């Protein structure tokens, strides 16, 4: 007793380290979005302006990743259906491409407006189908999709001004487009809008796990009275996509997805004379300098990696933080992660929803296990995950080094790898030491450093003091194994035309 008394430290030292309490003093009741997504019991292929059954008669179930329940069934298209779609697109091409640009623009404006009219319904459908939080589909995916149609509608009659000096601006013909599952409707809009504005016709293949909003958009195309065959949608899995890519009727292929599939597509199209654009994976460096506004940088880091459960090709999945502020940034980041709400994507308060598929969840779990095994230190805030459905808590790894697999491979999930650096040169070197080159972020109060970094970083997009900002007017695309070609802006038109 007396020893304890003697050793009694001063009052201030005896205090436990100050901690914030993010408990259940004030909990939020569930606040589910209740709009009707108006799903059909079965979705057919959309070819030549009509919904038609697949030739082989196969369908596959579309699952809600939030609860593993079946939503509807989707036609499984095969090579025969793909050929029919290309035939319809080829038939529609001459009239569509000769239509005055202003007329094509009218159709695009109509599509954009109809999409806005049904925004809530589409947001709910997108969330049910893909697992993303309703606030993101409501505030980002759907409005941004409409914005892309509006934007390219405006270009349709101004193509001569988009390419100064060109005597002729001509569409390619029939374009085959294969889109990913992370932003189903938005990626469709990125591809469809410029292709149609420039006078191409399209065969589009949505991702297997997220076909619903593409097929709902087909309803809008009918309502907009878009000429039959201008847009054809063939649903299915990898084989269907391969058939779309390999079809001789395609004048150009546009693909967004994994680098692995991108490689296969490049092989398949090599020597065929088909034009190709690829928007592939990324392992973006989000670089925080010691003079950065730290709380806002933390917000940008969270937005960079946890937006859409990290299913973002340009996600800021590698955090490079200057050693002198690393401890402070990580402490702030951990506290911020404690108030992220993980759970039912339909709840308006959910920040992180469901992982898109069982397959993707497995991949994330596998890579996270590798991260721990290779010696990086894992942190996950305490959070209750729903009992059913595919969920993964927000995760960060500290003590990550360039040689670790989690610093090199795209995880495509809510997992952040944190590395440190000492000097500007080291930051640039580490940031560029990757096979990818899609995006990067720079956080500093110093304007000259932003300019220097944006010149030296080999990335298609460099965000300064912000992250994951998109605009239809801004081109997007990669370097190195992140692909080639640009989508968005005036640049996005260039890949859909030949100029003379």
């Amino acid at each position, binding site marked *: 007793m007396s020893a304890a008394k003697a050793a009694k430290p001063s009052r201030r030292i005896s205090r436990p380290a100050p901690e914030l309490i993010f408990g259940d003093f004030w909990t939020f009741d569930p606040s589910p979005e209740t709009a009707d997504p108006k799903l059909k019991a079965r979705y057919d292929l959309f070819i030549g302006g009509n919904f038609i059954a697949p030739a082989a008669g196969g369908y596959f179930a579309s699952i809600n990743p939030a609860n593993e329940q079946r939503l509807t069934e989707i036609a499984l298209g095969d090579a025969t259906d793909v050929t029919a779609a290309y035939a319809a697109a080829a038939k529609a091409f001459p009239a569509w491409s000769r239509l005055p640009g202003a007329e094509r623009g009218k159709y695009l404006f109509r599509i954009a407006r109809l999409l806005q009219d049904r925004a809530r319904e589409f947001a709910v459908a997108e969330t049910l189908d893909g697992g993303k939080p309703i606030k993101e589909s409501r505030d980002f995916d759907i409005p941004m999709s409409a914005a892309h149609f509006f934007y390219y509608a405006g270009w349709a009659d101004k193509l001569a001004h988009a390419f100064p000096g060109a005597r002729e601006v001509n569409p390619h013909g029939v374009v085959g487009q294969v889109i990913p599952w992370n932003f189903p409707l938005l990626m469709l809009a990125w591809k469809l809008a410029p292709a149609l504005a420039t006078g191409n016709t399209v065969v589009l293949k949505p991702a297997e796990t997220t076909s619903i909003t593409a097929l709902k958009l087909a309803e809008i195309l009918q309502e907009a009275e878009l000429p039959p065959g201008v847009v054809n949608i063939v649903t299915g899995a990898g084989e269907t996509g391969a058939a779309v890519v390999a079809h001789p009727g395609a004048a150009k292929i546009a693909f967004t997805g994994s680098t692995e599939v991108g490689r296969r597509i490049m092989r398949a199209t090599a020597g065929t004379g088909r034009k190709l654009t690829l928007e592939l994976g990324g392992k973006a460096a989000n670089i925080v300098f010691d003079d950065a506004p730290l709380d806002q*940088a933390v*917000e940008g880091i969270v937005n960079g990696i946890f937006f859409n459960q990290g299913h973002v090709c340009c996600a800021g999945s590698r955090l490079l933080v200057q050693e002198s502020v690393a401890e402070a940034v990580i402490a702030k980041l951990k506290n911020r992660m404690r108030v992220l709400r993980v759970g039912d994507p339909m709840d308006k308060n959910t920040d992180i929803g469901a992982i898109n598929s069982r397959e993707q969840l497995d991949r994330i779990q596998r890579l996270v296990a590798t991260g721990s095994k290779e010696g990086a230190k894992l942190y996950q805030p305490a959070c209750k995950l729903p009992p059913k459905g595919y969920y993964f808590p927000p995760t960060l790894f500290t003590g990550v080094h360039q040689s670790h697999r989690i610093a090199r491979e795209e995880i495509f999930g809510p997992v952040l790898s944190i590395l440190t650096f000492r000097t500007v040169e080291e930051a640039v070197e580490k940031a560029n030491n990757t096979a990818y080159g899609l995006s990067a972020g720079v956080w500093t109060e110093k304007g000259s450093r932003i300019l220097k970094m944006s010149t030296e970083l080999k990335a298609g997009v460099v965000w300064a003091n*912000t992250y994951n900002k998109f605009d239809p007017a801004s081109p997007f695309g990669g370097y190195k194994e992140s692909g080639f070609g640009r989508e968005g802006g005036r640049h996005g038109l260039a890949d859909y035309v030949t100029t003379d």
Partner: protein
Amino acid sequence: MSVATSPSFRRLLNEIGAVDSVGIEERVAKYGTRSLKKASKVFGLKLAVSMVDLTTLEGKDTPGKVAALCAKAQLPHEQSSSQANDYPTVAAVCVYPAMVRHARKALGGQSPVKIASVATAFPSGQTPLATRLAEVKAAVADGADEIDMVINRGAFLAGEFSRVQDEIAAVLAACGKSALKVIFETSELETYDNIRTASFLAMRVLREGDFIKTSTGKTSSNATLGNNQVMIDSIRDFYLETGIAIGMKPAGGIRTAKQALTFLVAVKETLGDAWLTNRRYRFGASSLLNDLLRQLEKEKSGAYQAPYHFSEATESY
């Protein structure tokens, strides 16, 4: 030399870190998308009622007006006898120093409602320090539990940080046991960097249980979610560094229940549960109270009641 280029400002800002205005406004916009339903809404509304510093700061204030304000503070809404009165009292009444003794008379010695008084030549603070200190002492002597002081913005903008801080310390000494709330008048400091700097200047001399406060309510722009966020970020950083928990009071411009709930969401997600109490968070407001009550009654009955169902004891601010 403007404050932004003064060496003392740069030194302090380097130490505490700058604020990016675009980023902070993006952050606070997210609080507004939180959707509060049913029990969580009622809980938040009642919490907000308990945090109101019910305020009257008019040249025409009279003992009678102050007495009415005190009555409203203690019994925000008279309910029919069949219902239990389950609304909390507000946290405090906030009056000019000359009204403190009238407020004390109206509330008596045992009331849970505190008396706050805006001393130090509110709202401009443009009198000699001795005058300001005398005012604080008089208010405390008359029974003020809390003193709301204004900082010397003139000195702050001239880069005289030590003077600003020394004056806060002097007022604090004059407060004795009364709690101190330090008003920055954020609209006159203009930048988020300045607001963060002022927060640290003040917190470094304050005691646990004292507050920092956005504004007087007497200028064109008052409490905003952005200002609130810069200040609660500062409070959090200071707490994690020192263990000293400083309170926060946004004042002026918060008129609707929806606004108040959004501010509370910001507190919940930045400072956590320990600040969801009127010992650490207050709303300087008057018309807010009746909107909170109106929403609470609506949650009970399912219908909005006419404004005249709610007693009126305040105006403006």
